[in-house]
């Protein structure tokens, strides 16, 4: 019992620490990569290659003045950043990032928690995170903020549906709601290599981007129209928390796609690499996806709001429903 507790605490601390580190360095990576895409250099002053930039930013965040607008709804205003970041961090708790290692004669599974409905858990938490955005915009009593949060709410509702339907086809193929079993099912063929899951993969990528409010779907904080949107009134660490939540969501989305489609910690085609811990492959895939998210941000312009809604309701939702039906038919006819 004690050993179990210690193991859990250590795992939580390590995963949390690594996640925070990844969040910090994703901001650095994003700025560097965007810089290079725009033929600039990006931050390179603080430390070698600007590697200390995230730390400098964090320190700066702490020392900035923390402003609460006079007409803000204090409770929601203060609660919103926390509401935004906590679900984003919690998602990572059910993501399996490796098999098991034996330490001190104990088999330790490389995941904080293995719950049998992990996919649903993540789905619920991801939508909970949106409440932070919605309440933040509402609580700060600012018109731009309110518009941003309204957009966020509308976008979440429309894309969550498509996301859910896409997930169903993955679950049908894997026959499980547990992420561990989904990953283990891909030890020979990754889901993304199964032709029946090509469309869901693409759909999931697109809907996922919309779900985490990333370009080209960054409606809630369209800088050019909403002057930063829902977080316009936030400053100091409260703003930083929204910011961190966004990046934590991005990392957890990458981790989730890795588990659902890219075989988690497995090498493709059942290959084995001795001596290399399998966590490496997991982290590598997450990195590639995060890089893709940044790359894609440097490439695509933002959709217009009505285009986002049209794409969601008229294209993605019908497609994902059709896809569920197709996968279902495939399994009833051929299997």
């Amino acid at each position, binding site marked *: 019992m004690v050993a179990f507790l210690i193991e859990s605490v250590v795992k939580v601390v390590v995963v949390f620490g690594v996640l925070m580190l990844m969040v910090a360095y994703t901001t650095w990576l994003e700025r560097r990569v965007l810089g*290079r895409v725009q*033929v600039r250099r990006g931050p390179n002053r603080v430390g070698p290659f600007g590697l200390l930039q995230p730390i400098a930013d964090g320190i700066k965040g702490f020392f900035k003045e923390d402003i609460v607008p006079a007409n803000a709804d204090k409770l929601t205003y203060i609660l919103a950043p926390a509401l935004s970041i906590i679900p984003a961090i919690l998602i990572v708790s059910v993501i399996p990032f490796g098999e098991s290692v034996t330490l001190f004669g104990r088999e330790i599974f490389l995941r904080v928690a293995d719950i049998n409905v992990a996919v649903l858990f993540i789905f619920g938490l991801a939508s909970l995170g949106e409440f932070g955005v919605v309440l933040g915009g509402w609580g700060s009593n600012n018109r731009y903020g309110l518009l941003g949060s309204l957009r966020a709410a509308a976008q979440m509702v429309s894309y969550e549906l498509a996301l859910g339907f896409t997930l169903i086809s993955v679950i049908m193929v894997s026959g499980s709601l547990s992420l561990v079993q989904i990953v283990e099912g891909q030890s020979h063929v990754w889901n993304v290599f199964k032709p029946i899951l090509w469309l869901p993969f693409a759909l999931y990528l697109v809907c996922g981007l919309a779900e985490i409010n990333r370009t080209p779907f960054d409606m809630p904080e369209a800088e050019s129209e909403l002057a930063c949107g829902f977080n316009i009134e936030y400053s100091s660490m409260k703003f930083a928390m929204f910011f961190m939540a966004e990046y934590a969501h991005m990392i957890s989305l990458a981790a989730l796609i890795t588990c659902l489609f890219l075989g988690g910690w497995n090498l493709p085609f059942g290959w084995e690499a001795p001596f290399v811990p399998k966590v490496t492959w997991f982290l590598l895939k997450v990195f590639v996806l995060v890089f893709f998210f940044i790359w894609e941000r440097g*490439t*695509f312009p933002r959709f217009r709001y009505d285009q986002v809604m049209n794409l969601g309701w008229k294209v993605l939702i019908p497609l994902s429903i059709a896809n569920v039906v197709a996968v279902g038919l495939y399994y009833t006819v051929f299997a």
Partner: protein
Amino acid sequence: MAVITPLLKGLAFTLSRFFSKPVTIQYPEEKREPAERWRGLHRLKSENGRLKCVACGLCEAVCPASVITVEAKETPDGRRFPERFVVEVTRCIFCGYCEEACPKDAIELTRNYEFCGYTREEFHMTRDVLAKN
């Protein structure tokens, strides 16, 4: 397909940009050479160790931004010189009229664009500062 190809094209383009050499000039270490006729901070020229300026006040009169203040004084041997000569550089529009108006060719705009300070007063460039520039 018609939807996807342009997206992929865009991604390929940005990726090629990602691997290209950045054009950034690393400012304090690398500097861009200003143009030949760049109009930067003023200089009061001197000749034989004396300022050429005779404090006639023409530059003060012509300055469209009214940022020059000249106060004349005479040496015992009857030569006029600027006792006080201040250019409020923050309001200067660097039009170069002062240089054109000067009958003695005593003031010119240099290619120095690197002057900065923390207070407004630091930009009230006085005679001695401008002479040394």
